[in-house]
Every structure is written in structure tokens, then in C-alpha cells.
């Protein structure tokens, strides 16, 4: 019986390692300039966790196989140094791994968060609200009009609360329900929430950032591949959370200019 259990453990461990090694359910293709270290970090984490998992399963199976039918006269041997030694060894092993992963991870993270966007990054604002995203482009003047929460009105489709009658900066602002960006151009994304916590997640862009009510957050990224991607909310935000999404169109500069012109005409 013990030997059967040991073999089963080995089989389960190997079977579950196969899809991970073969990248069966791997991440979507990376379309960002900053994604490589994130993917590397992911691979390293998977490799280290995978090796530790396989090693622990093999050791477990070995002990079950070896000691399932102990001979009566055999003396029980202890781990060298006793339980104390074992605990220290585990702490060093796990702590070292967590620390190493953390050091690499912080580097990848800091590359995105501690480096300011370049001066010619294109600003785009995103507002999350239950249960939709709305985007804003500053228009020809390059200035975003002030937001007046009291003017926010679904009835007038004024999702940002812009005072277009009096505020010259707001007059040429372009508010859209879809986000379009030119390919290979750095985007400076300015994020705020209208109500509760939300999240901006584009798997292909390797971007996932929470919206925190009351905080203006920003991100910068460059998309390198033309296509249409989904932006989803990954922070449970209410009854319509499952349907809180928008689309990101990565297009050529020419197509982007045309799109923006068309959107400006629709304001």
C-alpha cells in the first residue's frame, strides 16, 4: 500500500509539471517594451517553485516507499542536528528563495514605477467607475480641463464632469469609451477612480494597476504590436464587475490621428 501511494505521488507530481514545462496555459504574448523582465521573473518563480515542488514530492515519496513497512528491530534515525537543525535549514532555504525572487522582482517593478516617463510620452487619462472605463485625450492644446464631480452626469454623457461652456482647457478634450494608442509610442497613463477601487489590467501589456479612490496614479508603457486587446477590471467592484471592460486598440500613428479626429468630431 505504502509503495502504491509513493508511486501515485510521483505520477501526480510529474503530470502536473508537464503543462507548466510545456507552457500550455502560459501568459499572452508580451506586446510591451518593459515586459521582458516581468516574464523572466515569472519564469524564474515558476522554475524555483517547480523545482521545490518536485523535490519535496520526490522526498515525500522516497520516505513513504522506504519506511512504509519498517523492520521491527530498526532504530529510528533523526535528521542530523535534530529538529532544530531541520527548522533552520527550512528557514534558510525558503527565506533565501523569497529574498532572491524579491530582489529580482523589485528591479523589474522599479524599472516601471521609479523611472519617470520620457518628456514626449503621450498623456492619456483613464477614469474607472462602476462599471466602465472612460478615456480622455487632452486635444490640440495638450491640457486637460478641470474635473468638476458635481457636473458628472450620465444623462448628458458628461462622464468626466467637464465644464465645456466655461473652461477653455476642457473644450477640446476628447472623451472616449475605447482606448486607442499609437504603436511604439510611450504612453503616460493618468489614472483615477470615480467611485470605488478598480483595476486596469491588460495582460498583453504586462500592466496591472489598481485604482485607489482619492489617489491620482500614473503608469507609463509602450506597446509594440498593432492589435486590439481587452482592458479588464480585476478588482471586485460591485455587481457589474464581471462586465467592466474596455478595448485597447494599438494602431499606427496615421490610424491613431484619424481615429482621434473622428472621436473629436463626435464630442
Amino acid at each position: 500500500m505504502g509503495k502504491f501511494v509513493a508511486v501515485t505521488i510521483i505520477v501526480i507530481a510529474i503530470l502536473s509539471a508537464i503543462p507548466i514545462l510545456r507552457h500550455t496555459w502560459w501568459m499572452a504574448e508580451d506586446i510591451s517594451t518593459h515586459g521582458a523582465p516581468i516574464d523572466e521573473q515569472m519564469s524564474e518563480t515558476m522554475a524555483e517553485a517547480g523545482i521545490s515542488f518536485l523535490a519535496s514530492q520526490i522526498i515525500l515519496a522516497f520516505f513513504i516507499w522506504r519506511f512504509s513497512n519498517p523492520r521491527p528491530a530498526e532504530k529510528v534515525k533523526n535528521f542530523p542536528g535534530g529538529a532544530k537543525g531541520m527548522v533552520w535549514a527550512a528557514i534558510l532555504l525558503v527565506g533565501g528563495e523569497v529574498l532572491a525572487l524579491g530582489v529580482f522582482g523589485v528591479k523589474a517593478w522599479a524599472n516601471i514605477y521609479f523611472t519617470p516617463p520620457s518628456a514626449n510620452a503621450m498623456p492619456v487619462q483613464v477614469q474607472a467607475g462602476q462599471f466602465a472605463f472612460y478615456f480622455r485625450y487632452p486635444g490640440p492644446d495638450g491640457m486637460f480641463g478641470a474635473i468638476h464631480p458635481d457636473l458628472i452626469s450620465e444623462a448628458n454623457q458628461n462622464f468626466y464632469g467637464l465644464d465645456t461652456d466655461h473652461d477653455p482647457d476642457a473644450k477640446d478634450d476628447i472623451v472616449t469609451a475605447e482606448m486607442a494608442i499609437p504603436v511604439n509610442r510611450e504612453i503616460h497613463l493618468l489614472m483615477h477612480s470615480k467611485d470605488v477601487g478598480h483595476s486596469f489590467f491588460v495582460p498583453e501589456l504586462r500592466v496591472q494597476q489598481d485604482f485607489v479612490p482619492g489617489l491620482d496614479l500614473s503608469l507609463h508603457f509602450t506597446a509594440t504590436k498593432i492589435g486590439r486587446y481587452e482592458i479588464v477590471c480585476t478588482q471586485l467592484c460591485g455587481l457589474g464587475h464581471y462586465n467592466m471592460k474596455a478595448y485597447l486598440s494599438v494602431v499606427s500613428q496615421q490610424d491613431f490621428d484619424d481615429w482621434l479626429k473622428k472621436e473629436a468630431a463626435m464630442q
Partner: protein
Amino acid sequence: MKSRYKIAVTVLALLFLAFGFLYSGNSVNAAAEGKITGTIKLSGTPPHMKPIDMSKEPYCAKLHASDPVKMENVVAGADGSLRNVVLYISEGLTGNEASAVPSETPTWDQKGCQYIPHVLALDVNQHFKVVNSDPTSHNIHPMPKLGGPNHEWNKSQPTGAPPFDVSWTGEEVAIPIKCNIHPWMHGWMAVVKGPTTLSDDKGSFTLNVAPGTYTVTAWQEDYGTQTQKLTVAAGKPVTADFTFKAK
């Protein structure tokens, strides 16, 4: 003992008769002999109605791809006729006229990520049906005034969910309705006592009332209310035209 039963039966019969009279009184009012007709106009240039971007909901975006839906705050014809204006009697109704409830159950449909109709005129306690004709979920979220006679509610209606029946308990002009999943979906329900109607695509309307002196109110979601006092005689339609000024 026997005489007691007799008294009880007589009292019950009288009660039934009394309710019967009250009830028939109401239905008599429905067939009123007076009439108020008129046309609603908009003076000045109608405001720009933004086209609506429904890209969040691919089904609806595709449905309206060739002809995008526009906002419906001000729906004016080329001749200046104004549609979707709620008309009702704000003063002069007798108790019976005010408390009569029409038996029709209008439908509040969610179709193509739009509210159809955009404005619904209802009587207090009149039932209406909420329908979802889309292959996507909607949530219907009316927001009556806080502290008013009606209470806010918010109900999800997934694809294929059966229609549900609701009514409002108090007068309110008007209750904004929204869908949180599709923030561009916005409509109004005007709840009043007595006869009410909406101006049609030619801007015209007809209100059937009993002869008497009334104040007619016209309500438009962006331009507010206008009133007119008039006297209705039997068999002679009275005209009440309203003109709203574009902002």
C-alpha cells in the same frame, strides 16, 4: 342569532355595492368627454446630440455600427417639433380622476443597449413591465429623489430573464433611470396622478379629461416645466401649445 347574520349579510352587501359604485365611478372618468390637444415646439437651434460609443458591449456596438445611436435629451424635428415631452394635469383634477389608474401596462424595454422608450409617462400605482431584449445583462437602476415618496432600487436582468412588473407609489416628475453596466443608458419615468401622455414625433399630444378648469404642465428633461391654465368644455377640444427655448 339569525337576525345577527342578516345584519352582517346586509352590511357586507352594502359594502360591496359601495365599492362597486366607487370602482365604476373611476371607469367612467376614463371615458372623459373633454380633450386638450396641442403641439410642443423648440425655438432656436437644437443642441448637438452626441453619438454614443458602445464599444464596451460588442453586440450593441455592432448593432449600431452603421448608424450610431445619439443622445436623446432633446429630440427635435426639422420643423422644430419636440418629442418626448411629458404632459399632465398638475391642478384641477377631482379626487376620482386623480386616483384612477389605467389598466394598460406599458413596457420599459432594454434593447440594443438603449431604453425604449427613452421617457415613460405613468400614473401613480400603474404597473409597467421591465423587459430585457438584449443578449447581454442589464441592471435597471431608478434613482428617485431621496426622502421622496418613491424608493431607489437596482435590479439585474440577465439575458433571457423574464420581464418583471413594477409600479411607483408616489408622484414624481421625473425619476432618472440608469444602467450601471452601460453608463450611456439613461432614461426617465414621469409618475403623475390623472391623465398623462408624451408628445409624439410630430410634437403633438392629446389629453382626455372631464370638462373643468385645469393647469396643464409640460415637462422636458433638459428644459424643465411650463404650465398653462385652461378651461375644458364638453365635446370641444381646447388647444394648449408649448414652446421651449433652446439653451
